[in-house]
């Protein structure tokens, strides 16, 4: 992901036989003055929570009550024996396995379609991009209404072609797929923008040369364009996987984990334990923090694994 911005090559000169006075009037002081406000904020609200989360995961702790008691690995042991935690893990994996490939393949197709100079192209792009700026709650409201079991437009339109009616979010077997459809609607524009920018970085001479040599469009896409989209695809796979694993807003608002816990994903379960039951007085914050930390480690390992894999298959230019 982020590189170092080229900072490696210009590391700080070793402190010369420096005197305090020179240090204070020097670049060191102005540098620190410039970064300090931002650094303090990020340390307090970004860095400390990472360490505190780890500490909490070894404690029996409440959200509001001051109670803090060391329990060792008890919280972690408890995860393995908790059927609801297992259900949340399974739901999260199912969602991720559906969302990531569908959204990426769809956006590749859409970006390819949008990457041409034809009439109405600005309108088409706008239609795909608008959901990017639509909030998760606004999206949730739109799809709750669209997918309403009794009065929704979706059941009416599908009825016209002879299928349905569907329960969508209210049907235990359809709720997860409905969530996937809704989130793909919301994310497609984001992925498409990235693919579109990457497609425009593919030099037309390459595909033209392939065409002259008699390559079909299909093979010139898979042999030239697709490898050159490698960095963009890697980014989208990593990004979509991370965001899929931490799905929350849509589940909280649209299905609230139901029906029958079939959409209860990990972050939602953590929220439920810590906040809905925690504010009710139960001391589950430590246990919830342990689940969150496991998720954190999974995300970290997956990301590293994806980059490791990518180094072997992704082709970087310049």
């Amino acid at each position, binding site marked *: 992901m982020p590189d170092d911005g080229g900072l490696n090559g210009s590391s700080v000169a070793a402190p010369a036989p420096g005197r305090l006075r020179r240090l204070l009037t020097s670049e060191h002081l102005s540098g620190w003055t410039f970064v300090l406000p931002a650094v303090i904020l990020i340390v307090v609200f*970004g860095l*400390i929570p990472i360490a505190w989360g780890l500490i909490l995961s070894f404690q029996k702790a409440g959200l509001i009550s001051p109670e803090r008691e060391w329990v060792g690995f008890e919280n972690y042991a408890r995860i393995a024996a908790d059927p609801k935690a297992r259900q949340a893990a399974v739901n999260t994996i199912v969602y991720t396995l559906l969302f990531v490939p569908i959204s990426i393949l769809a956006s590749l197709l859409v970006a390819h379609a949008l990457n041409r100079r034809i009439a109405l192209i600005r309108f088409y792009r706008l239609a795909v991009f608008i959901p990017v700026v639509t909030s998760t709650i606004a999206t949730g409201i739109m799809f709750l209404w669209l997918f309403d079991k009794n009065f929704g437009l979706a059941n009416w339109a599908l009825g016209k072609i002879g299928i349905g009616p569907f329960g969508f979010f209210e049907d235990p077997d359809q709720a997860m797929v409905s969530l996937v459809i809704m989130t793909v609607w919301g994310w497609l524009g984001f992925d498409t923008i990235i693919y579109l920018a990457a497609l425009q970085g593919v030099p037309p001479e390459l595909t033209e040369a392939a065409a002259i040599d008699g390559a079909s469009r299909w093979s010139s896409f898979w042999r030239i364009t697709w490898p050159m989209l490698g960095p963009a695809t890697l980014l989208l796979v990593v990004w979509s996987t991370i965001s899929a694993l931490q799905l929350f807003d849509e589940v909280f608002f649209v299905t609230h984990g139901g029906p029958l816990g079939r959409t209860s994903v990990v972050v939602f379960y953590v929220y439920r334990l810590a906040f809905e039951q925690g504010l009710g007085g139960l001391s589950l914050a430590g246990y919830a923090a342990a689940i969150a930390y496991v998720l954190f480690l999974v995300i970290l390992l997956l990301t590293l694994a994806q980059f490791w894999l990518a180094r072997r298959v992704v082709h970087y230019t310049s």
Partner: protein
Amino acid sequence: MTTPATSVITESPAAETRVDPRTLPGEVGMVERPRRRFLPFDPWHLFLAPLAVVWLVPLLWMVVTSLETPSETLRFPPVLWPESLRFGNYLDVVRDSAFGTWFWNTTVVTVTVVSSNLVLCTLAAYAFARIRFLGRTFVYFVLLATLMVPLQVVLIPTFLIAKDLGLLDHLGALIVPNLASVFGIFMLTQFFRTLPIELEEAARIDGASRLSILLRIVVPLSLPALATLAVIQFLWTWNDFLWPLVTILTNQGAFTLQLGLATFQGAHQTQWHLVAAANLMSMVPMIVLFLAAQRAFVRGIATQGLKG
């Protein structure tokens, strides 16, 4: 909107029609040939037009619903075009809910957070890009590492910090933790490093201070990058749900639009004409900003993607 020469996403030059003499008739080739145009328009319209319609339907259906009567919304098959356009639904939402308060709160939070990010991230990024100070590389990497950790997985400790600082239940909880962002620092540092350093060096020889170099030379050259940061930060803050959900617990006077909307929908389950009107009103500022600054949005997402 955009001129092809400068926009990030331009129409592909490859789509121009060229005739390749070596492509045999009937052979599938890269090059567009007039012979294959059996339709009076580009065949991709057959894919793109339905796609655009499907993608706009949820939004258009909200617009239609927001103009219906309560009984029209509860009919099946659905009423696709209401008998009379009830713009009064919008007034009803404003009158019967705290919509004005939610809108005002969200505006205050978003404007404060965006302005503060512009200032604090610019200062920090400039130092990371240009000033050699002790610990620079180390601090920069530590900040970058936090970029990898989403709020969702550190929600509980972050909440406890906000609680200990006495931020819960008022707008401070939504403002203070977001005054500076690692993303902003990272993006601006990358951008500042691409600026030519000669002007700044000349100004330093003339005795200008770091701050005046930043304000008079760097910032004017960085307006596109700052605009990009502003719109992306605006988007995140305006649409944020999880953090307001956990920090604004009981004080309805500090509700944001997203919190208010979620509550409103819960309380008016069957009054879809009102929910739709409220929802659309909450989206207007974001959509207007998007239409006005589409280029900055697209650049923000594309550069975030390509440089990340």
